């Protein structure tokens, strides 16, 4: 890295950004003016609406067998203090439904006989006996408020009438109970109070902490995108990118300077937004709830900076990549939206109850910041995990910057007319370029189907769909689409007997080693016990016969998943990454397909081992055997009630020795060299 060039390029980028009137107005001036205008405008509209509703006289009618009683009830309760501003006037239309249609009525009150009321309850479910009861009352007369929900004024009037009638019902019930000898006031049967031991600061911090990261991420993405859209896509469109890359500056320096510019502008704008928000709170433009108290010490502010400054760097780098992929400014604008929406999902991690930064979430970028920030705001900051989070986010940003620098060396990125040869040649070469796309689509389908199709709550249906519908058929489609050599993909060749023996020997050893590994991890990052229980429940579902479990959870995954992951995916990546990196990538992708957060790490570890075996043997069959034996072993152990986490450390060390020996044997006798 040439630091002098980097400095020069950064100053150059900042000068161009600051000279853009559009950027300055959109990022600094507009938010300062628009935010209070929007807030004041919304408040004005709300106030006007409230006044208008208070001044409205709602026209209603009463129908049905006990209309007179209902009329008396309404007259009596209309006088209550809480309904004093509720102005109503009774009308007497011949056809109330037609009157609703003509808008000459806002709503009408329909009294019903016991039979009618029971029928209405059966049809609509009723509102039960009261807001806090779950049983539906039958065998009593009914009262129904009929209105048109599409008219706001009518809806508000009807809702207030419902409130009034509920108050009337409660009061009438109490009256009846007292008159029949109930010993005290019905509400006085039990004195109940609640005592909250959390401080106001902790409560406010918890409430704010859940959405703090989302708010900052929205601000950061919006702020960074103002510059990012222009910084590569805009330059490509104007032709200045070509001018710059023919200068003496290196691509890494160009990408880094552009990243620094986006990062700087993003931080400045976000900081200014925070300052604006504080000023508006001070000026009472933004009204905080009563009892709202946030106690931010210098240390907490420092910790938040430590979390959000690397996060801003990662967001800036991601936006730079999006800008590089876009050919024009408009195309960049289109691409930003999915990134924007996608970033909100992990940012909402703080909303999940019980999730702590001292867990696997510390290694999930953005989600880790969200959780750690909530802990800081509630006064329960974990300094070690703040450090881990900052490092993980920083490394993510670094990797993304390196990737964006690489993009600037790609001809299809900088010279949009040019395309990769592989696109035309098709076959194996094209498959290598597209393999990630296939697995992304496969993941999206499994995720979408599992989340939206109720039938997939059944483990059998889900396993069959994923294994056969996604992995097996997906693999066949890839083989056919790219005319891949099946023998090459799955590695059909003779393997020596020590390999098979070593695979079988490795299975129990690997299970014990994995338990030891997670026990070590658990001492640093404790996993909540409820998560472990949930993992056990998902891995071995209850109520399934043993033979079905063996077929569906050991044999079928071994065949289908090995074909997809260790066959197609590993084959597709073979010329692109170092073998160790390939194992890690395939392992992680394998883990991500088991989309429950707490299953990712153990499955990814299994995926790495399986990828290693496939690479060492040049075939997926030993990995298939390992996979089937591993899952079968876990099922049998679970059925027998044997757990592996009660061994002492010498047993774990011995298991590690056996595992190492097995892996060495597989490596030694694996592929013919």
């Amino acid at each position, binding site marked *: 890295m040439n630091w002098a*060039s980097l400095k*020069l*390029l950064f100053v*150059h980028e900042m*000068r*161009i950004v600051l*000279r*853009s009137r559009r950027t300055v107005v959109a990022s600094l001036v507009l938010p300062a003016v628009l935010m209070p205008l929007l807030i004041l405008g919304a408040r004005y509209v709300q106030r006007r609406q409230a006044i208008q509703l208070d001044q409205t006289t709602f026209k209603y009618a009463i129908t049905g067998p006990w209309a007179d009683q209902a009329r008396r009830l309404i007259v009596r309760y209309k006088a209550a203090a809480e309904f004093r501003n509720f102005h109503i006037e009774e009308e007497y239309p011949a056809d109330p439904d037609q009157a609703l249609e003509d808008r000459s009525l806002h709503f009408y009150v329909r009294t019903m006989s016991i039979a009618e009321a029971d029928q209405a309850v059966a049809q609509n479910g009723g509102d039960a006996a009261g807001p806090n009861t779950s049983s539906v009352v039958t065998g009593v007369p009914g009262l129904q408020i009929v209105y048109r929900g599409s008219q706001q004024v009518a809806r508000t009037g009807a809702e207030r009438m419902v409130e009034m009638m509920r108050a009337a019902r409660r009061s009438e019930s109490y009256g009846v109970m007292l008159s029949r000898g109930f010993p005290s006031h019905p509400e006085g049967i039990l004195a109940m109070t609640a005592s909250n031991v959390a401080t106001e600061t902790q409560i406010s911090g918890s409430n704010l902490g859940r959405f703090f990261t989302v708010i900052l991420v929205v601000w950061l993405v919006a702020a960074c995108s103002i510059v990012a859209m222009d910084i590569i896509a805009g330059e490509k469109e*104007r*032709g*200045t990118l*070509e*001018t710059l*890359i*023919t*200068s*003496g*500056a*290196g691509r890494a320096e160009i990408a880094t300077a552009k990243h620094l510019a986006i990062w700087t502008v993003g931080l400045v704008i976000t900081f200014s937004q925070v300052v604006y928000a504080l000023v508006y709170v001070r000026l009472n433009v933004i009204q905080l709830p009563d009892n709202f108290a946030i106690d931010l010490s210098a240390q907490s502010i420092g910790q938040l900076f430590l979390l959000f400054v690397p996060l801003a760097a990662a967001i800036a780098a991601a936006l730079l990549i999006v800008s590089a992929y876009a050919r024009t400014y408009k195309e960049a604008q289109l691409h930003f939206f999915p990134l924007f929406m996608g970033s909100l999902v992990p940012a909402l991690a703080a909303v999940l109850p019980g999730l702590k930064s001292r867990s696997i979430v510390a290694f999930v970028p953005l989600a880790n910041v969200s959780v750690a920030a909530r802990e800081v705001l509630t006064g329960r900051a974990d300094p070690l995990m703040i450090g881990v989070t900052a490092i993980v986010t920083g490394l993510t940003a670094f990797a993304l910057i390196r990737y964006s620098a690489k993009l600037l060396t790609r*001809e299809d990125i*900088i*010279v949009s007319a*040019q*395309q*990769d*040869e592989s*696109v*035309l*040649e098709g076959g194996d070469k094209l498959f290598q370029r597209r393999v990630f796309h296939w697995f992304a689509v496969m993941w999206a389908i499994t995720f979408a189907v599992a989340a939206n199709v109720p039938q997939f709550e059944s483990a059998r249906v889900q396993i069959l769909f994923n294994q056969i519908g996604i992995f097996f058929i997906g693999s066949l489609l890839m083989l056919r689409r790219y005319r891949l050599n099946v023998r090459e993909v799955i590695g059909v060749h003779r393997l020596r007997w020590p390999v098979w023996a070593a695979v079988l020997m490795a299975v129990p050893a690997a299970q014990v080693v994995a338990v030891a590994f997670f026990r070590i991890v658990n001492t640093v990052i404790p996993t909540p016990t409820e998560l472990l229980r949930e993992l056990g429940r998902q891995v071995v579902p209850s109520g399934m016969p043993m033979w079905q479990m063996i077929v569906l959870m050991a044999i079928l995954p071994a065949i289908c998943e090995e074909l997809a992951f260790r066959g197609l995916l590993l084959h597709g990546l073979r010329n692109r990454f170092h073998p160790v990196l390939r194992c890690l990538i395939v392992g992680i992708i394998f883990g991500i397909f088991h989309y429950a957060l707490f299953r990712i790490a153990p499955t990814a570890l299994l995926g790495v081992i399986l990828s290693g075996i496939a690479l060492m043997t040049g075939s997926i069959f030993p990995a298939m055997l390992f996979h089937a034996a591993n899952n079968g072993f876990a099922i049998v152990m679970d059925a027998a009630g044997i757990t592996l986490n009660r061994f002492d450390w010498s047993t774990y060390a011995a298991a590690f020795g056996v595992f190492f020996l097995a892996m060495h044997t597989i490596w030694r006798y694996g592929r013919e060299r």
Partner: protein
Amino acid sequence: MRVDSSGDAPVAVCNLTKTFLDESRGLIRAVDGISFQCRESEVFGLLGANGAGKTTTLRMLSTIISPTSGTARILGHDIVKNPSGVRRSMGFYSASTALYPRLTARETIEFFARINQYPDDKVQARVNSLISRFGITEYAGVRVEKLSTGMKQKVSIARTIAHNPRIVIFDEPTIGLDVLNALEVQKAIHDLRSEGRTIIFSTHIMSEAEKLCDRIAIIHRGHILACDTLAGLRQATGLHYLEDIFLLYVRGPA
């Protein structure tokens, strides 16, 4: 054509090849194993029709894109192994290399001098001399977006040679310009050659090639069909006009 790329020629191109995909035509060998050398202080012209491979060749020489095979050396720097060295040794000008609209003319020239590592203490003197040489003193402090096309052209050439490179590449520099502006560019090329620089110049306009080039390479479908002085080409073909010579090589004898 056999070329020794290890010689002292400031530009030595050896078996340079570039293949890429065109959606409608399929896989194209845009440049197919071309070799040539440029001498000191000469204007070397690449003459060819649209799509002949001129721009692809010059983009490879300026390291915007990398060759599929073959290589080239510019003042001893290999375009594949040392692209930064190549870029600092040369200036690249084309119709698609635009200027930053929000910088002034002076800032533009100064930025490109510094980014190409022109000595810091001499940058201001160099910028002043270029501003005065191209007659843009009056507009030096005006943002590029407010300059006329002719002025922009001058600033563009000034920024190309801001770091005083020995090699300057002009890729169809007069495309889209009116006669007066085109003449200004031609004059600038002539002057740069007179200063001892080596110019590689691509065009499809015969009169420009005739007027400016010391040697002309006729390029067609990625191949160099002939490479000689205008006199040499005339002697080899027996034809006088470059247009006729070009057609003879491209279409074959009538």
